[in-house]
């Protein structure tokens, strides 16, 4: 239990820029990311045994289900009737798709799998998007009564401030850091630095959170090529191993939990991943975490064991998670600056870690990064998934 039967590694990565991609349809976004990953892995398409796609809500946003079939057709693999699977766990869909692919390879069923994540969220107006996004939390018992997704995180923020003394400035500093990092990421939706005052004085969304505390509405796709370690070594000079994978669940509604200042799902997922990889939090050199809202990053770095409970805000504010800090977090810009197409984020996080471990994250490279971690969460923590990656 808790072990993979075969080792797996990533051979190639690719993503589109994230943002408002008016000219690009969902199909085009998917194929662009997929082709980049295949090119990066330097393989022929016919090597692909299976496809997984993480996507939260093609049904609501595009009126279309069964997108596994849509994407595999776009990738040109339907002649060989390659199996395709769509996976959903709100905004953890990307990481969950990866996790399913890992098991398919580790079990010996497949050797090479293309794993993608994609979402097109800008074809609807922002208030409608707000409604659809709530489908990742409890529509019946939270949404119906007036809770939007940001308001749920606002409740967590206020409780965190009340219980631990976390300040508004500490929370806002997450956005400042992530925008500074995003400015160095050519794929980021926002590539402009912002200052603390901008975040503090931004229009309010749900107090204490404002516009800059919240992820933007984005389109985008990201993909990677996953293989068993032997195949990976055959084609790739620097395969990146996935040494740990963990997953945790929690209640759909925050009302059915005992605490709202931590995510039990993340704690469970990270423990599983650390155990499988045989590492501890202090071994992690670089991490991508789920900053759908600034407060979520603060809670994540506590849940992942990087900082003691209640210390997350102080740590970010004092620069411990900046590029020069003891544990750089969200070097890509995070969900806040890189953008957050729901299904794509999980894969984009992995891709950033791969870049870091390959020493190819120019402008934002963490020195001597050998072990990286990515944490991807769904909704208000109903699902959380952690992966640990290492240089081979």
């Amino acid at each position, binding site marked *: 239990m808790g072990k993979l039967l075969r080792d797996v590694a990533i051979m190639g990565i690719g993503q589109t820029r994230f943002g408002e991609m008016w000219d690009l349809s969902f199909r085009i976004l998917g194929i662009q990311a997929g082709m980049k990953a295949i090119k990066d892995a330097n393989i022929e398409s016919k090597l692909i045994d299976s496809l997984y796609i993480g996507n939260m809500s093609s049904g609501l946003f595009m009126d279309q289900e069964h997108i596994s079939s849509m994407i595999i057709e776009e990738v040109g693999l339907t002649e060989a009737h390659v199996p395709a699977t769509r996976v959903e766990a709100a905004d953890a869909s990307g990481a969950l798709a990866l996790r399913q692919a890992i098991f398919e390879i580790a079990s010996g069923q497949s050797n090479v799998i293309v794993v993608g994540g994609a979402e097109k969220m800008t074809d609807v107006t922002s208030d409608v998007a707000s409604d659809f996004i709530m489908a990742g939390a409890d529509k019946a018992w939270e949404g119906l009564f007036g809770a939007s997704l940001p*308001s749920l995180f606002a409740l967590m923020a206020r409780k965190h401030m009340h219980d631990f003394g976390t300040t508004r400035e500490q929370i806002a500093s997450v956005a400042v850091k992530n925008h500074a990092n995003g400015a160095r990421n050519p794929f980021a939706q926002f590539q402009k630095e912002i200052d603390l005052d901008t975040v503090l004085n931004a229009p309010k969304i749900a107090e204490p959170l404002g516009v800059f505390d919240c992820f933007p509405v984005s389109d985008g796709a990201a993909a990677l090529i996953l293989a068993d370690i032997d195949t990976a070594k055959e084609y790739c000079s620097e395969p990146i191993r996935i040494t740990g994978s963990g997953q945790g669940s929690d209640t759909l509604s925050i009302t*059915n939990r005992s605490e709202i200042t931590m995510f039990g799902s993340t704690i469970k997922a990270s423990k599983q991943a650390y155990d499988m990889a045989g590492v501890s939090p202090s071994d992690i050199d670089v991490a991508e975490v789920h900053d759908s809202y600034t407060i979520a990053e603060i809670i994540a770095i506590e849940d992942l064991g990087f900082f003691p409970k209640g210390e997350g805000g102080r740590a970010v504010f004092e620069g411990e998670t900046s590029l020069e800090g003891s544990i750089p977090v969200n070097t890509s810009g995070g969900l806040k600056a890189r953008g957050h197409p729901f299904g794509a984020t999980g894969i984009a996080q992995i891709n950033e870690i791969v870049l870091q471990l390959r020493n190819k994250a120019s402008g934002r490279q963490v020195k001597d990064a050998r072990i990286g971690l990515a944490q991807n969460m769904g909704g208000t923590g109903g699902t959380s998934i952690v992966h640990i990656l290492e240089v081979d």
Partner: protein
Amino acid sequence: MAVARFWRNQDQRYNLMGSECEICGRKFFPDKTMCPVCHRKSIGKMKSFRFSGNGTIESYTMVHVGMPQFKSQVPYILAYIALDEGDHVLGQLVDCDISKVSIGMKVEMVFRKISQEGKSGTIQYGYKFRLSG
């Protein structure tokens, strides 16, 4: 139109009808078929339990931008409330100024319009809260 789906939850929305596990005594809102602590032992042993609607504020926020159905109500206060008998509930806090609200204050339930399915559809009624005492 989600007529049946909303109708099914009327007792929960109007009267805060939840469940009590006869094995461990824990109370849940909304109702549950099985106790998440007692599991199989609790099947068939979950009885209806009506919460009083009295509770304490554990967190709150002022919502300025929300979903389309709530556009005309912003800004409004959303509270995370610990019900006296156990479990938590989310609801709007009405009839008060946000400057008067703080964590730890007591609230009581009131009966209000929660939403409607457009001008020609049904209206959903249910719980909101206001400061008590």
